[in-house]
C-alpha cells in the first residue's frame, strides 16, 4: 500500500522532509510509526515520544491505534499552537 505521509513543525524538521510517499503493509498508525522508526534514525528521533505527536488521517485527527484502512494521507505533527 502506498501512503502520502506529511510532517509539520518540529516533526518535519527532525525527519527532514515535508512530505514523502511510503510503501507499507502496516495496518494501523502505531504499526506505521514502529516500521518507520526501524528504517532510519531520523524517524526514531521524531517519534521518540508519541504523547507529543498528533496524527491525522485524510485531514482528520485520529488516535494512534486508528486503522490505516483506505487512508490516502497520513499527517504527523506536534500539538497545535495557533490562535
Amino acid at each position: 500500500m502506498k501512503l502520502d505521509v506529511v510532517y509539520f513543525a518540529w516533526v518535519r524538521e527532525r525527519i527532514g522532509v515535508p512530505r514523502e510517499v511510503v510503501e507499507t503493509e502496516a495496518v494501523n498508525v502505531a504499526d506505521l510509526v514502529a516500521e518507520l522508526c526501524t528504517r532510519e534514525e531520523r524517524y526514531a528521533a521524531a517519534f521518540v515520544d508519541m504523547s507529543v505527536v498528533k496524527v491525522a488521517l485524510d485531514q482528520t485527527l485520529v488516535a494512534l491505534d486508528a486503522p490505516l484502512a483506505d487512508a490516502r494521507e497520513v499527517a504527523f505533527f506536534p500539538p497545535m499552537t495557533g490562535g
Partner: protein
Amino acid sequence: MTVRVQATDFDLGAELAALSKGRVDIGAVVSFTGLVRDLTGDLQALELEHYPAMTQAALEEIEAEAVKRWDLDASLIIHRYGRLQPGAQIMMVATASKHRKAAFESADFLMDFLKSRAPFWKKEHGLAGAAWVDAKEADETALKRW
C-alpha cells in the same frame, strides 16, 4: 459564517463593520484578536506554519459546532500564516448574536477549540535562535469546559 486562512493582514474594523452592516437583528458583537507578543525584546519574527489541506476544514468544523450550540447571527474566523512581526495581528474571531451571553461564550469557545484543534504551529525567531512554541497543558484542559 465565514472562515479565511491567509498570509496577508486583515482590517479588523472593516471586518467587524461588515459583520453587522445593514442588519437590525444583531444586538451584540464580540471580537477576539490575537497579536504577536515580544515580552523579552528579542523576538525578530513569529513564523506560523499550517497544514493547508486541513486548516480551512478544521476551522469550519469548529465554527459549525459554535453555530450548533449558540444562536448566532454571524461569525467570522480569520487566521494568518507565514512570517509575522512583533505587534502584528495573527488572527481574529468575531461572533454576532441577539444576546451578549451567546456572543461572549461562542467567541470564547471558538478560541479554545481553535487553539488546540486547528493545525497551526508557531516558531519564534529570536536573536539567539529559533524555537517552536510549546502547546500549553492549560489549552487542552480548556476544552473540557465546553
